[in-house]
């Protein structure tokens, strides 16, 4: 293989293009994470007090994803719901979808270097799975809130029994998955 026209001091050429189409900057994932997290913190806490803790956690989650601040943020948002009464409204449904989205974006921020470039095809699978999981979850949420949410007088006949059953089932499922020898 011959290098060609060296004696004429040829000008340098730009390196060849990337071997695949990847037009989305990796930093966009982290920006999306911050945007979703700030919106959810605003939804849960309102524009004051704990909201700024949410913003701080969002920034930490985006800047140092290795420390898993994204999932701490999910816990922080969930704890904000302790003071609220469960009623069927858009806010709860958005929160359920938002927390799931936050989980996906935190995971992506962890594995995608911020200076990298993403192929849109690589984002299709997480997006498809998000929809596939969210559709039944939202339906379950609507049904559960309709049936199990405490009444305005605080009376909740089925809530404790349903909670105990659902929580135990979820824990059993997780335990089975985690303990299954691979």
């Amino acid at each position, binding site marked *: *293989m*011959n*290098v*060609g026209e*060296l*004696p004429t*001091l040829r000008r*340098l*050429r730009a*390196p*060849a293009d*990337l*071997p*695949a189409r*990847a037009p989305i900057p*990796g930093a966009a994932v982290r920006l999306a994470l911050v945007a979703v997290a700030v919106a959810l913190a605003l939804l849960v806490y309102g524009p004051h007090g704990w909201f700024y803790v949410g913003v701080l956690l969002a920034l930490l989650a985006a800047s140092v994803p290795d420390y898993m601040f994204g*999932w701490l943020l999910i*816990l922080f948002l*969930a*704890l904000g*719901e*302790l003071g*609220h009464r*469960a009623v069927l409204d858009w806010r*709860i449904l958005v929160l*359920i979808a938002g*927390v*799931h989205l936050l*989980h*996906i974006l*935190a*995971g992506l921020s*962890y*594995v*995608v270097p911020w*200076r*990298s*470039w*993403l*192929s849109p*095809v*690589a984002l*299709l*699978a997480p997006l498809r*799975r998000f929809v596939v*999981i969210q559709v039944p*979850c939202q339906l*379950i*949420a609507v049904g*559960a*809130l309709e049936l*199990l949410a405490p009444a305005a007088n605080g009376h909740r006949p089925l809530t*404790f029994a349903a*909670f105990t059953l659902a*929580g135990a089932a*979820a*824990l059993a*499922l*997780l335990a089975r998955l985690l303990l299954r020898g*691979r």
Partner: protein
Amino acid sequence: MAPTLVASAAIAVLLAAIAVIAGNLVIALMALPLIVAVSIGWDRLPAADDQLSTRLTLTDAGGGHVAYRLETTLPERVAAVVVRQSLLGAEPRELVLAGPQAGELAGEVALLHSGPQEVVRFELRLLGDEQAAISLPEDPIVGELVVAPASTRVRSLPLPVRLQGMTGTHESARLGDGGEFRDIHPFSPGDRLRRIDWRATARLGMNAGELYVRRTNALADATVLIVMDSRDDVGEEVAEWSRNAAGKKGLSSLDVAREAASSLAGAYIAAGDRVGFQDLSSRARMIAHAGGTRHLWKLARAIEVTAPSQVPFRHRRAPIVPPGALVYLLSSLLDDQPVDLALRWLSGGHRVIAVDVLPPPRFVRADRRQRIAHRMIMMARDDRIRTLRSHGVELLRWATDEGALPLAARLELLSRPVRRRGSRAVRR
């Protein structure tokens, strides 16, 4: 293996526990998609014994380009791949591709330098579903290539002070066969009968039996030693002298040195001379002088694999040069050691031509400090060149500067016959 899954699972369990303890329906509903997602991610983790297999091929794409193709067979259930790619040693770029997209990665690179070089380097990291990083970065997949230098046609060949042997293509000063007409001389014992010039004998002979012969010069060949100083490899971009990034430094001194060495070796071997090669930084790259096509292949290989050593060479004695050889010292002359060696060879009676291989400088992106540093380095280099010239070492600049004579003309000047006066070479 999958820290994101572990974190998600931990948070999902925690949320479920809080929901049960506090009797909060919303927190339970928030935990639900996480539990499902983690379950799917965990269930779809690839088996630990599945291996990634890759095959990287490099092919000549013509026009100074090389095409690379990385074929990858991914383990089952790999959702995405983080590809870290570096071309020609430049800063790596990272891509996140879906699994099927990473099956075949191909592209082209413009070759910028001769010699051994890393054309492309890939590092792959596999991702499972739910963004589970399921592998540490794999061992790098590296495509390396040795690129032959360009070759310049050399028409005029400078010769050593003394030619050797009785065969070759160069005219010798000695009596012998094969060369040009020398003189008409009275026949003496030992002269061959076929050399008798009957016309001259008829014209000049005074007595019967007085014969005259035509005498010719002998032919001879030259012995040439090409010595390459491969310690440094500096490019034409002065701002890149410290970083020395292959993609940014432009034409480098070793590119010029390899081109000069292979051009000279090819021209001398084609002329029937004997050529040796020595890399000052490596004892392994020393080839004794010889002639012939097979020897030229050996020389070409030794020249093209020459790489910068980065360390100063230490020679207690100057490398041994065959008697009467012409020495070409290919150096950027940025330090004193090649100068010392050249003077030692010169004092041993050899003709020494120092080939200056430093490319013309360019100052794109060079700041003021770099320009001043360059000027100081050039002043020291000019002193070395003056020292060499004052002792009788001839200088040949291989790269053509603006306004300078073309290389062919400079070689033509050096090829003129040399008359020795003391230790100095005087050109007629």
